[in-house]
């Protein structure tokens, strides 16, 4: 259970990315790259995660800023959510990301929170956060999927021992924009698609992303493919601020007249990873952007959903949000 009292740990504040990567390499499992700290510090305070040392990334210039590139933009992993939300280029060409980022928590949290930190945050499953020894925490039970479990916020797709969902608001937008995640360690760099960055429990139940010990997410690249497309983002949560999505949807589409040429559509908070709705995409490509197509898309989106004790509302909600994404974009 929660302790609400942070233990002692070492704090490193490297001034360069190379130094940070060296530290991450040296510390391995015991090291913890620290971005805005909004998720990390909570876990430390709750003593649900014990670390030897935090590597504070705040002083590393290479991780900051938003840059225009030959093929789109590159967002430093340490760019704050507020910077992204207010960036003219992002607002103009990649509005779905600005809209998604604006939905994160509160202005204060967005001032301190970073995009890199946001997409790396851990799941909000309350049983897991409580510090119980569930599958995700290395144990051999899922407390959120028992006959009496209180699991209103949990998944309707992709359950595999764990029924937690992705908590990130920007993540579905990044997948919709076909973003790339730049990952480095002391030995080099790899780039993975946002779609492949998030980890399904069936592959590794203890991780939310593909990041390995010693690796640091350094930047997020957004290709120009969807620049200026027609976008839609909507998040439904209980409160209008400082709340996690019950379901969210992010869509990017290109139109010829009223015909949908191409589309990427992704839902948040319905699965452990942002759920790209490839069936829907296939079904609506070439269709008119109208109520009928929207209805069809909504119905298709929820096919195969499997509910838990308290979350069957996510089916109509997801269906409606997908419908709105097509109809109202």
């Amino acid at each position, binding site marked *: 259970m929660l302790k609400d*009292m942070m233990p002692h740990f070492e704090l490193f504040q490297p001034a360069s990315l190379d130094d940070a990567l060296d530290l991450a390499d040296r510390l391995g499992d015991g090291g913890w790259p620290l971005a805005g700290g909004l998720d990390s510090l909570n876990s430390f305070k709750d*003593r649900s995660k014990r670390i030897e040392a935090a590597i504070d990334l705040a002083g590393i210039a290479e991780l900051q800023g938003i840059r225009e590139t030959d093929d789109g933009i590159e967002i430093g992993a340490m760019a704050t959510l507020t910077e992204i939300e207010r960036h003219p280029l992002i607002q103009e060409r990649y509005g779905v990301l600005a809209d998604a980022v604006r939905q994160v928590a509160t202005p204060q949290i967005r001032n301190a929170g970073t995009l890199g930190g946001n997409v790396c945050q851990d799941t909000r499953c309350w049983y897991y956060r*409580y510090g119980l020894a569930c599958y995700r925490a290395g144990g051999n039970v899922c407390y959120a999927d028992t006959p*009496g479990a209180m699991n209103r916020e949990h998944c309707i797709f992709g359950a595999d021992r764990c029924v937690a969902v992705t908590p990130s608001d920007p993540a579905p937008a990044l997948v919709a924009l076909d973003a790339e995640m730049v990952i480095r360690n002391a030995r080099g760099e790899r780039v993975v698609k946002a779609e492949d960055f998030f980890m399904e429990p069936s592959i590794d139940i203890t991780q939310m992303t593909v990041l390995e010990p010693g690796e640091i997410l350094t930047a997020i690249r957004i290709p120009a493919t969807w620049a200026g497309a027609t976008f839609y983002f909507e998040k439904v949560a209980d*409160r209008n601020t400082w709340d996690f999505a019950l379901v969210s949807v992010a869509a990017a589409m290109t139109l010829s007249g009223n015909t949908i040429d191409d589309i990427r559509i992704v839902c948040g908070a319905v699965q452990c990873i942002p759920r790209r709705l490839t069936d829907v995409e296939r079904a609506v490509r070439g269709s008119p952007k109208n109520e009928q197509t929207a209805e069809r898309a909504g119905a298709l989106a929820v096919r195969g959903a499997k509910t838990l004790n308290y979350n069957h509302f996510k089916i*109509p909600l997801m269906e409606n949000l997908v419908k709105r994404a097509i109809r109202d974009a």
Partner: protein
Amino acid sequence: MADLLGKNFVPPDVIGKVTGRAKYAEDFRADGMLFCRLLLSPMPHGRVRSIDSSEALRIPGVVAVLTADEVPSIPAPGNPILTNEPCYVGEPILAVAAISETIAQDAIARIKVDLEPLPFTVDPLESLRPGGPNARIGGNTVIRREGLQEVKWTAEDFAAAEDGALPMGKPTTEWSYGDLESGFADATLVLDETFVTAGHSHHSMEPRSAMAYWQNGKCYLHGSCQSQSSAVPGVARYVGIEPENLVFVAENCGGGFGSKGGGYPIMSIPAHMAKKTGRPVMMRISRAEEYFLGSARPGFQGRIKIGFRADGRITAVDLYIVQENGPYSGFSDFTSAAGAVSIVYTPLAMRFRGIRVLTNTPPRGAQRGPGQNQIAAAVEPLIDKAARQLDLDRVAIRRINAPDNDSRYGGNQGPITSAYLRDALDLGAKRFDWESRKAQSGRRRGSKVMGVGVGQAFHSAGSSGFDGLVRLAPDGKLYIHTGVGNLGTYSYGSTSRVAAEVLKCRWENCVIVRGDSSRHLPWNLGQFGSNTSFTMTRTNYAAAMDAVRKLKEIAARDLGGSPDDYDIANERVFARSNPSRYLTYAAAARRAIQLGGRFSGRELPDDINGMTRASATALAGTGLIGVAKDNLERTGTVPALAAGFVQIELDLETGKFEILDYLGVADCGTVLHPQSLANQVKGGAVMGFGMATLERHIYDPHYGLPEVIGLHQAKPPSYMDTPLNMQWDAVNKADPQNPVGAKGIGEPLLGCAAAALLCAISDALGGHYFNRTPVVTDMIINAASAKTQSHKPLQVNTA
């Protein structure tokens, strides 16, 4: 009169609060101070077999471990200080003191507590089943005057209830008046409805931290408390000392909402630890801990049968409430709920039956409108349901049942002092333009639909018989001693102004003395139950009138004639016939000191409380002392009543709604302090919106674990969830049994808003009634898409 009353002013504690200079319990420091942390129960019910602290005590910096065996034991069903039978997850078993909180927490991880798990439940009905689990050893219910008892209903009791309806076995409390049977026989429409209301946490901004040290046998305790004088005896008892040996400092309180109405057991932990270690001890309570220790409103599983005539008049009510009580004493919400029904709807006949059932969830305590507001949220939508079926206007059906000054209250049908709920409805309907808003009900705009609602609530809001103490000093100032406390509503200030008004003193020339029991404060009721405005205007009036009498007597002695020949104005007592013959208050104060006796507090009235006597004695000889017990007439319950009006637009595709407009109207007697009343109307409404639709209190029934241990999980409304412009008004008709016409109001302002919002949601959904609070997003989505709800009708702690 009315130079001061009914006008806005800046309460003296405001500046400290907005500049950050105000000190709360956790801001104090003392030389050599230790910090203590609590070892909390990881399980919902257990028994401590053994505790091994040896390893923890070897950690450098760890000073002491304090267990339940070392503190006064509180007789069942009271809430213990520390316990060897934890009855909910998060209950403190022991405390560790160390030179830092981190070390104390490290030490806790090294303490071995061998706990034997015991049966538990988070659902009252489970405990009432034959052979069902008891939340604590020795029983599952608390009966007034009998204490902890075990009650089980029979299998037949459970079988008798239709699917989803509340079973109604043997109650532990029951009353009735009128002829219930003929009441229902005379009814055109009878509703029989089962409902559930959740019990939410209080979310006080300031967790209940405390700091204590001992000096020369006296315990100095800085606590977080709504109340001042009335808390002293209880806190002293928890510390194990006489009240006169406790110096209790509670000058500022970061919110209580009922959860800090009096002293509470864990406040004494630093005092015990300070005694054990010989050093000052600070106990800071974290946000998560506040969700365990900060108590919660009791939840209801209820059933109500209501008979209506064709014109909407309620002929009979039969109410049954099973109250989720937590493991300890809980609070009297269920009986207060019944009282509220009796006065808000004045049914011609009524029966109430109820039982409180212990559960392994945090201790339950009073929360703003305890019982009255849950029942407002449960019943008001049913009044709408009846209006719909009888084809009546929703304001009209409330008007016809509304109380007036001759209405009676509760099971014994006792008198009330005044009731102007009908005036509040009329004023509200006019200001809100109810008729044209009603016409917008159901209007569609894309996926959105309009809904309007009206709601009402009540609270008994006034007491009497406490003491007032004022002092006119030789410096010419009026010192108003108030022991009521300061939960943040500033009513300690507005009620103190009555003394200034009576004595015709400039407000700038008055000093409010409060916040610390060593400052010679009178015996006053605590700051809870919306009583302050009624109760403290009376005590301050009584003390000030005593001072006026003494001023006139002194003037008569010195200037000739009889006291009746004198009047007061401009801080002088003067001869009516010749105003140039006068004494200033400063001169009169000096004369009072010379005269001694009752003028200077050397002789005191016989009927004042011992605490007031001690305070007045300490002040004796320092000025003209006005001191008196409030012996003014009070012959009935003092009703605070309120009506709320709300308009929303609800999105059928997302379950989200926007509150477009809100108006709250108060029947609080004469308005004392408009700005503070406005804050209460609006703040109460925000809290009501939360209770109705957003706040969560969730337990896993299988493991007895709480989901909600942070503000982001509890979800009180943010400013983004509330309308920016909320309107307020007041009937402003004087209560005849208060010298300045005032009544309390804080509590029903929550209930009327919660009820109005729930009614508006049901209205937007075309008459879908949830029979449950809160109505959260998923429930609206399910209702809008014609899906069944996830919870069973009687399930509790699900949202």
